[in-house]
């Protein structure tokens, strides 16, 4: 349990440190556009009736993955591999029913979708993602709740990690799960969460919180944003073309 918490914290902290190091050039394409593009590609891949389109999108996603640093690639491919393996198992009966293409198509689509989302997760820091939700028209309270959730994940993760370390030190030689005092750890963490939430609410009251939650940083539309929009239009046009092709073929 301790190790899982540390892994999660490491991811969040690395994301935070990377954002600070990039010093305001966080991402050169507006995060909202990146998210919109990712969702568009996922949806089009899912509804595509022509395998050519899905293969083309998959090729693009794999190309982006290949351009990543070597140590990042296995992390990126873990989730798509697991999802497509599961999909393969679920659609395996299709082979025996005389439709092996169905199994391959579904598996390929699942792999493509999950890989696109993994790439999005890798490209965007979580602060950019929550800010992008705001730009895409999500209610401010939704964005605020997301940010609060991430914050509490860090705070409670650290707190429960410290308690687990203390428990580990105290029960040297005793390794049973029963003796781990898990109930106490969870209870303490819960109480800490309640106190922290109350403290946050009071801090917001002291700063006259009236529900306004805006992004400080404003992105400027640039040439790369135009390029992303053009790419989205091109992919959509290609999708339509492949649909027409499929319609003609049938």
């Amino acid at each position: 349990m301790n190790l899982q918490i540390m892994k999660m914290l490491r991811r969040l902290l690395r994301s935070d440190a990377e954002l600070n190091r990039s010093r305001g050039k966080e991402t050169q394409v507006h995060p909202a556009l990146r998210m919109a593009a990712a969702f568009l590609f996922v949806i089009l891949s899912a509804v595509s009736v022509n395998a050519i389109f899905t293969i083309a999108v998959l090729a693009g996603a794999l190309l982006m993955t290949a351009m990543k640093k070597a140590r990042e690639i296995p992390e990126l491919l873990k989730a798509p591999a697991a999802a497509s393996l599961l999909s393969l198992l679920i659609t395996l009966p299709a082979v025996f029913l005389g439709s092996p293409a169905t199994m391959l198509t579904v598996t390929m689509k699942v792999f493509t979708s999950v890989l696109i989302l993994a790439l999005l997760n890798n490209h965007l820091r979580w602060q950019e993602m929550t800010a992008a939700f705001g730009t895409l028209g999500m209610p401010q309270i939704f964005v605020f709740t997301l940010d609060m959730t991430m914050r509490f994940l860090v705070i409670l993760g650290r707190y429960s990690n410290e308690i687990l370390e203390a428990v580990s030190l105290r029960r040297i030689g005793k390794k049973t799960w029963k003796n781990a005092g898990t109930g106490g750890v969870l209870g303490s963490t819960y109480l800490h969460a309640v106190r922290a939430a109350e403290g946050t609410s009071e801090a917001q009251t002291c700063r006259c919180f009236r529900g306004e939650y805006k992004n400080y940083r404003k992105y400027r539309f640039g040439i790369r944003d135009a390029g992303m929009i053009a790419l989205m239009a091109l992919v959509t046009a290609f999708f339509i073309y492949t649909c027409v092709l499929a319609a003609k073929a049938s």
Partner: protein
Amino acid sequence: MIELQNVSYGYGGETALKDFSYSFEKGKCYVIQGPNGCGKSTLFRILNGLSFASRGKYLFDGEEITEKYLRDKQHAYDFHRRIGFAFQRSEIQLFCSTVEEEIAFGLWQLGLSEEEVHRRTEEYLRQLSLENVRYRMPVNLSGGEQKRCALASVLAMEPEVVILDEPESGLDEDGQEWVRKFLTELKSPERLLIVATHSKEFARDLADVRLYMNREHSLDHAEK
């Protein structure tokens, strides 16, 4: 500016504050000292309208501050706009995703223009030496940086009253020195500063008036 008349506070049979009476004047720095559990934090919570006296009166510029009074949103807004409070544990009061947003948060609530929000945010990032961590998540900062971020987020709103609960706690020597210097520069005829601390040196350097609380949760004596 702030007047407390026989203010008492208790919960679950426990007394947290007993018959506290004092008047705080604008333009001065009051340092409150006392043993752990004497009621300093309770006093600050009452001053900030987070808790309410079970007995006695709390007057802010002649207006009695009660739970009913602060239930009115406009009253609450006007009150909290004029008082800034930095909690003892900075982690609690930092809840935005980046340091610059933390400072800008209060300014958005004040309804200031975008230009003014940016101007003040940049100014306080500079003053509190937070420019190199401006994109960091506040809860991931070091203790000293969190303290500075909390101070910046409060001071950016330019309140008339600034209340600080043990601002030097958890900091190393350099950090404490920095806070001491910063608060000395913060003193002005237009501002009321109320600080709680355990440090005698801190109190000696900063205070115009030193208030001592005792274990009976009341005000023992005041020194000028």
